[in-house]
């Protein structure tokens, strides 16, 4: 397997290679590599190597590549692998320009180091999210590979006393054209390391790509089918104890008292740790920790949110939307246009709080020592993980060693560091390493949730039934305002409004307003497709309502509004064609369509559903057509759509977190249900390929499928669903 496995050896015997000893020789300018509102131009510093641990004659022209004198090629992965295939596709970008076979590379998780591994498309934060790993890496990591290749060629040319231009690189070797002499990269490493780093390198043209655009085998797959893949939860430093915990069931509550006599009597329980708002049981193994936790008699002071319910929050949002919001889009004059409309359509939409429910429950292992602290975790925002540990322990940043791991599901949950903060708080009281593992119940009830949104939306139609005015106002939490405050300006951020701002449809008069309203007593966070998970549902459902009001076919209606968006029109037409849009379906079945442009990708979906007499919904088939520009690994693109579609259907049919008396009511996969094998539809994915800049692929499939499903339910039953999740009681028919 290609991974360098985490090493659980004591810190004093470990090389301090990771973040230390960095000598920054050059800056590779990233340029405007990534699309999206968060893009901040800055230089990505590169470094000369891993200092002390590595042989000085190794060749490491930047932070991502190390070529050993033994010929080994190690790529350091600045983006995390959480199933989205980033390790493989990021490696492809580097390997393409470096001219090494993918099968020859070894991968390493990047250590926390924002200067080296910050994400240029996320304001320089070292984080993997927003479906932008490929978009952010597209130029800089190909440049990193090309720089190394140019230097290796120069080293060979110097040795042979020929011109660099008379040589080329292939399969980890430099070749002299005229004489057919060859030399392996490993043999050139020492010499290449002494050469100056070129200021500028030329990247390959798309027609020169050998790897990019071809289906590559996932580098992480073999370890994931034989049980050897190591996730955060598998970290086992010697002497580690296992803890599980109970946090205040009401957000913002406090621990009042704990009777731990019975818990301490449980065999294997070592220690009870009391924090201000949580209590943990430390034991020899998870079974004892869980038994101990169950034996605790805990009294909570529920605090100000003791009586909070979802209805309270929805009512507040509903009231809030009576006020004007920050204007996200204003085209023409909506008020005037509305007065001239022949028909007016008004609707209210609502989407619920959602949990992430990653398969790997929240966990983090921490060893707090007198002068250092070590953290083992799988996290999407590694530098923040390090920072929180430094803050709690009071140790300097460089004394916090963080080992990142494969991630057993991210979906936005592991862009947060609450689990790491909690584990360090507990570890401060424990002698030696402790692994804090949340039970599934704790994981569901103390998630940070996709926000609840409340939307008022109206449109005015002309004589032909086409929209001339579109007025949309919604209220809910802004995650970016908390997570990346500089990205929240004048009451707006690019994420919360993503999919609500019209970029595709030609509409003469548009007004979109957003009111930031933070719900009391429930934390919110990014959730696969984030703003689009809410907005695309509202916009594409409402567009369907307009088509129905105009008595027009939903595909034709949309197509007529897409004259200025040819790439969108093309995916809509392809999806409709492949789905057999005009073919008849049996009674009780229907097709629904959606189209969107989010995360830099154009996507249309057609869902086919069957609604039973008792209101049960079965999604039979989903057809997806997309244009994400340049494709790095086409099989990964397909896999991401398949997975995102399942994720979205789970939310549409079942996903809902509710509060009663300030507590989350759902507990486990019986009350927070997700789609299972027997319910999974057939999914077809069609790609329109071109050489445009790549779009994101992790998330678009989720936002697109939700309205496709609810629009299909409308086609099957005539019932318009404006509140998620789907309520079968509303669909009962005889």
């Amino acid at each position, binding site marked *: 397997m290609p991974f360098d496995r985490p090493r659980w050896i004591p810190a004093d015997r470990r090389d301090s290679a990771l973040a230390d000893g960095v000598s920054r020789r050059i800056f590779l300018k990233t340029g405007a590599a990534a699309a999206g509102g968060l893009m901040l131009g800055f230089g990505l510093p590169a470094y000369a190597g891993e200092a002390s641990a590595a042989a000085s004659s190794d060749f490491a022209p930047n932070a991502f590549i190390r070529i050993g004198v033994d010929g080994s090629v190690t790529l350091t992965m600045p983006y995390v692998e*959480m199933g989205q295939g980033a390790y493989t596709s990021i490696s492809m970008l580097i390997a393409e320009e470096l001219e090494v076979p993918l099968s020859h590379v070894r991968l390493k998780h990047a250590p926390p180091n924002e200067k080296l591994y910050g994400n240029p498309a996320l304001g320089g934060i070292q984080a993997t999210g927003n479906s932008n790993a490929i978009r952010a890496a597209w130029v800089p990591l190909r440049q990193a590979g090309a720089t190394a290749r140019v230097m290796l060629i120069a080293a060979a040319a110097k040795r042979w006393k020929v011109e660099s231009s008379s040589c080329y690189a292939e399969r980890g070797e430099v070749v002299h054209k005229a004489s057919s002499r060859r030399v392996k990269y490993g043999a050139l490493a020492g010499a290449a390391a002494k050469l100056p780093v070129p200021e500028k390198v030329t990247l390959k043209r798309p027609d020169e790509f050998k790897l990019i655009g071809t289906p590559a085998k996932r580098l992480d797959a073999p370890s*994931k089918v034989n049980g050897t893949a*190591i996730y955060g939860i598998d970290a086992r430093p010697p002497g580690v104890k296992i803890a599980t915990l109970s946090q205040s069931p009401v957000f913002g509550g406090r621990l009042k008292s704990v009777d731990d006599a019975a818990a301490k009597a449980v065999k294997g329980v070592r220690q009870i740790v009391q924090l201000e708002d949580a209590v943990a049981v430390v034991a020899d193994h998870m079974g004892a920790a869980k038994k101990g936790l169950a034996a605790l008699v805990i009294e909570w002071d529920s605090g100000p949110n003791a009586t909070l319910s979802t209805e309270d929050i929805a009512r507040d949002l509903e009231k809030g939307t009576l006020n004007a919001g920050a204007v996200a889009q204003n085209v023409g004059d909506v008020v005037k246009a509305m007065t001239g409309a022949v028909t007016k359509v008004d609707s209210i939409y609502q989407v619920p709080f959602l949990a992430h429910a990653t398969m790997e429950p929240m966990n983090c292992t921490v060893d707090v020592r007198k002068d250092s602290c070590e953290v083992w975790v799988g996290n999407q925002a590694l530098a923040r993980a390090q920072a929180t540990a430094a803050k709690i322990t009071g140790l300097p940043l460089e004394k916090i060693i963080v080992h990142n791991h494969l991630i057993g599901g991210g979906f936005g949950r592991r862009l947060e560091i609450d689990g790491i903060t909690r584990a360090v708080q507990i570890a401060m009281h424990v002698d030696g390493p402790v692994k804090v593992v949340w039970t599934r119940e704790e994981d569901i009830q103390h998630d940070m949730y996709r926000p609840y949104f409340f939307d008022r939306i109206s449109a005015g139609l002309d004589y032909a039934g086409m929209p001339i005015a579109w007025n949309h106002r919604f209220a809910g939490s802004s995650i970016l305002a908390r997570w990346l405050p500089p990205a929240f300006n004048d009451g707006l951020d690019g994420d919360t409004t993503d999919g609500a701002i019209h970029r595709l449809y030609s509409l003469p008069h548009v007004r979109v307003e957003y009111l930031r309203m933070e719900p009391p007593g429930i934390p919110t966070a990014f959730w696969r497709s984030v703003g689009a998970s809410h907005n695309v549902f509202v916009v594409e459902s409402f567009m369907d309502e307009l088509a129905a009001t105009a008595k027009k076919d939903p595909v034709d209606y949309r197509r007529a509004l897409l004259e200025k968006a040819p790439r969108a029109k093309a995916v809509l037409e392809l999806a409709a064609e492949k789905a057999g849009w005009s073919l008849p379906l049996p009674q009780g079945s229907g097709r629904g369509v959606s189209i969107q442009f989010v995360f830099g990708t154009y996507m249309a979906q057609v869902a086919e559903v069957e609604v039973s007499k008792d209101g049960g919904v079965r999604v039979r088939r989903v057809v997806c057509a997309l244009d994400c520009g340049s494709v790095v690994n086409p099989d990964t693109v397909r896999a991401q759509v398949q997975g995102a579609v399942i994720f979205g259907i789970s939310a549409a049919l079942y996903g809902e977190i509710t509060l009663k008396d300030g507590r989350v009511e759902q507990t486990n*996969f019986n009350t927070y249900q997700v789609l*299972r094998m*027997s319910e*999974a539809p057939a999914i077809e994915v069609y790609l329109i390929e071109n050489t445009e800049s790549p779009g994101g692929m992790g998330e678009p499939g989720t936002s697109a499928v939700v309205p496709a499903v609810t629009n299909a339910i409308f086609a099957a039953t005539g019932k318009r669903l404006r509140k998620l999740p789907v309520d079968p009681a509303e669909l009962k028919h005889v």
Partner: protein
Amino acid sequence: MLGMTGTKFGCGLALCGACTVHLNGVATRSCVTTVDSVGNAAITTIEAIGTTASGRKIQRAWLDLEVVQCGYCQSGQIMSASALLATHPHPSDSDIDDAMSGNICRCGTYVRIREAIKRAAESSAVTAKGS
């Protein structure tokens, strides 16, 4: 403590299947199975499933069709699928639904899991003919 980490904790209530192992070849949720109840039954985990004929075919098909994403549930998926293939060499779609619906995958790899089980069954057929 054997220290084998291939079998995963997911829910603790036999709702997700991440912890699936074989007891005498039968797919079993280890999170609700007590040590006492196991008795002398043979326990097989993901670490050794490649030594069984059906397990080997399932693992091969999983790689051929690139099933995995985050991979956390896949040990359990492969254990359930291997048990299915051992008793139903040519599983129908409804056999697959029955055997696999206890295993949740949040990355949503169901489409490929279904295809991979069928692929593994085909490879069984080839082997049977060949032998």
